[in-house]
């Protein structure tokens, strides 16, 4: 198929960017979106032009590095990451607008690459448990009820790709926060630091310049790992509990 791509080009963090239109022919439906961009970059290289900068790493939907706003949808029209998005989701003759995640907390580095270190700083603020590492502990020493283990696991599926922030009209990272808080809060190991964790992580979230949640649900719709809205309720409940405990 033949596609028209309107891609955001920006040479660096502090220079103005703009859309540039490209034509890509012979796109196979079996290609991933990133492979299609690879083809375009080959084309640009052969013409002696600067290739388009975009992030990618594992290309199997588990690392969270790739993330593009594709015609107004974070990670495009499938419920997956950009690297796992098939070109068969598009039709011959389509015009696709490709933008980087737009959030002031995710500054643009170049073209489609944004700096998601804000997420790392949120994790550093409290997204961990304090334990002695080394030999694996006996798995049965701290039993975890199945329902809690399942919810912790489902929340731990978050890969920190930032699609929730990208899709949110307020550029809020509450789904990311909710996933991390629920993941650690559902298991016994997460209890000792539960109150201080939520306060530190939310304070860092606000400090980074993310917006507040308005419970609209766009984040869950965009999430490639289908993290549900109820983790945000758990986040809110944990903060309410911390408030009551005087944190």
């Amino acid at each position, binding site marked *: 198929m033949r596609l028209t791509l309107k891609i955001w080009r920006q040479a660096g963090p502090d220079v103005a960017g703009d859309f540039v239109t490209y034509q890509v022919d012979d796109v196979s439906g079996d290609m991933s979106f990133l492979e299609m961009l690879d083809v375009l970059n080959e084309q640009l290289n052969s013409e002696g032009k600067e290739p388009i900068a975009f992030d990618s790493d594992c290309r199997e939907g588990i690392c969270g590095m790739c993330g593009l706003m594709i015609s107004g*949808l974070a990670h495009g029209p499938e419920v997956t990451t950009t690297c796992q998005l098939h070109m068969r989701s598009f039709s011959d003759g389509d015009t696709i607008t490709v933008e980087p995640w737009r959030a002031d907390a995710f500054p643009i580095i170049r073209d489609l690459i944004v700096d998601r*270190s804000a997420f790392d*700083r949120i994790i550093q603020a409290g997204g961990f448990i304090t334990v002695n590492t080394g030999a694996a502990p006996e798995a049965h020493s701290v039993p975890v009820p199945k329902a809690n283990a399942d919810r912790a696991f489902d929340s731990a599926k978050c890969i920190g790709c930032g699609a929730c922030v990208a899709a949110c009209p307020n550029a809020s990272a509450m789904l990311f926060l909710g996933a991390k808080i629920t993941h650690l809060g559902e298991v016994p190991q997460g209890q000792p630091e539960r109150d201080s964790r939520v306060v530190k992580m*939310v304070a*860092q979230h606000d400090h980074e310049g993310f917006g507040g949640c308005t419970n609209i649900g766009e984040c869950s719709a965009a999430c490639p790992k289908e993290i549900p809205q109820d983790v945000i309720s*758990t986040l809110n*409940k944990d*903060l309410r509990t911390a408030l009551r405990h005087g944190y």
Partner: protein
Amino acid sequence: MATTTSPATRPTARSTTIALKMVMAVTGAIFALFVLAHMYGNLKLLWGEEAYNDYAHHLRTIGEPMLPYAGLLWVLRIVLLVSLVAHLWAAFTLWGRAERARSHKYAVKKRVRQSLSSRWMRWGGVFIFVFLVWHLIEFTIVRVDVSGKPVPDNPFQLVVDSFQVWWLTLIYVVAMLALYMHLAHGVFSLNQTLGWTNTKGTYARAKVLGHVVAAVVVVGFLIPPLAVLFRLVK
């Protein structure tokens, strides 16, 4: 690439966005309870002039002689006024924060899951506030009879005179549609913000609750003005 550090200063639960959202939620819950009670009181209009005026009078004599005349009414007014200030302050603070969080907008952005109600929370809220100011001027602070007749000293008569004017009833119908949308998302949202929707079931039930509360309030509020407009109450 090494992660640059940028610590937040003195984190406290009180200074977070979520605490601000909780202010919205609690004050919103006060308003939801208030409109339910207000709607119930308005329905007295259907029982005629005496029932309605007695109700208006009783609002001022509740608790007498333990409380002074209109004592409880003033307590409620102060609670509502403080809630209103807090609700608006939190709303505009969060609105500003959200605007700053994405100073560069998308060229193309599709809506996937958001409801009409949720999308109109902010501007709908502003509209409801403007309506509220007019509503208070009309029936409490100044008392205006839009039919052009001299303002009666009788609450029932003022309501009947007013809603016999079609355009005034129309303003109220539009305001009630705005209130429906605000309550439908607001009541759901306050449950989520207060952390009561931690499972798929409770989350789904909170959404239904939002629409049920909104429907009860709005239908209840619309019955008296429409009854007056269609001359079922004179």
